[in-house]
């Protein structure tokens, strides 16, 4: 199923609270245990980008307004 959207987490703000990870209906997100933000948190990121529908639930629960949500525009089917 191709992705319908994607999200970008601003690592300045992410505090690894995992609310977005928990609430994503399609298990798109997880904490990136290989990296640290400037404040020393493991930031959230997409591990399952193909499943992202751009629903925005992650951004809605984020206490730090760290997430920007994008949706791909519907494409014209070329005949």
């Amino acid at each position: 199923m191709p992705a319908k959207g994607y999200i970008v987490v601003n690592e300045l703000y992410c505090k690894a609270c995992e609310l977005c990870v928990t609430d994503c209906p399609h298990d798109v997100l997880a904490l990136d245990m290989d990296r640290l933000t400037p404040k020393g948190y493991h930031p959230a990121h997409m591990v399952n980008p193909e499943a992202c529908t751009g629903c925005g639930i992650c951004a809605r629960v984020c206490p730090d307004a760290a997430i920007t949500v994008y949706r791909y525009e519907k494409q014209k089917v070329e005949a």
Partner: protein
Amino acid sequence: MVLTDIPTKVVYKRPEALDPRVTHYCPGCTHGVAHRLVAEVLEEMGQVENTIGVASVGCSVFAYNYFEFDFVEAAHGRAPAMATGIKRVLPDRMIFTYQGDGDLASIGMGEIVGAASRGEKITVVFINNANYGMTGGQMAPTTLPNQKTTSSPTGRDVERQGYPIQTAELLSTLGGAVYVVRRSLHSSREVRRAKQAIRTAFEVQKHDLGFSLVELLSTCPTNWGMTPVEARDWIEERMLTYYPLGDYKVSPAVADLKI
């Protein structure tokens, strides 16, 4: 993988009414959500340049650092009085207070009842997280029976330490209060409903209808000793029965508002 050659639209981005600063709130603390919702609502209403916020004393004492509009700092509990003073002299501005359990329901009880009963045309955002966060987790008027806090270490004993105060219910009895509701921030669905309530509350003020207050059940992961995710579950399991969500006062004029 992000496909960059397909046109995209932004579905959600950080509100510009939020200052670019990183907040000092704990990871997962729903103060951040409440701040974000207030910023979103004021931006959507085009009221950012018309708003003066009144910060109170608690974890949100530096709320004025996190918004892009004018703010004043009140003494503990006095924000509704300060807001009254400002609104009375600048009646066409949007004036709101942002207060926690101790500020509003303990030391500030006189001021909030005064403002609500006088029907001051201000909006109050009330963060209920069942303890005193800033000072390290003491018992609050909103602490639940048997809940352990640093000043009720064996659990709140209602015989000695009294019963929690149900603020929305209490204030809904006052004539000047036209919109008093309780919402929660413990799930994305409830956050959506909370935003609608905050929007209604500010519309009440915009239409000069009277005093509006939104009580928001909120998490305090650090002082509750839980992860942010566990803290949200605690709201659902423990707080909702004592603090039912709902509309406690909606005057006919508010009910007729088309938003």
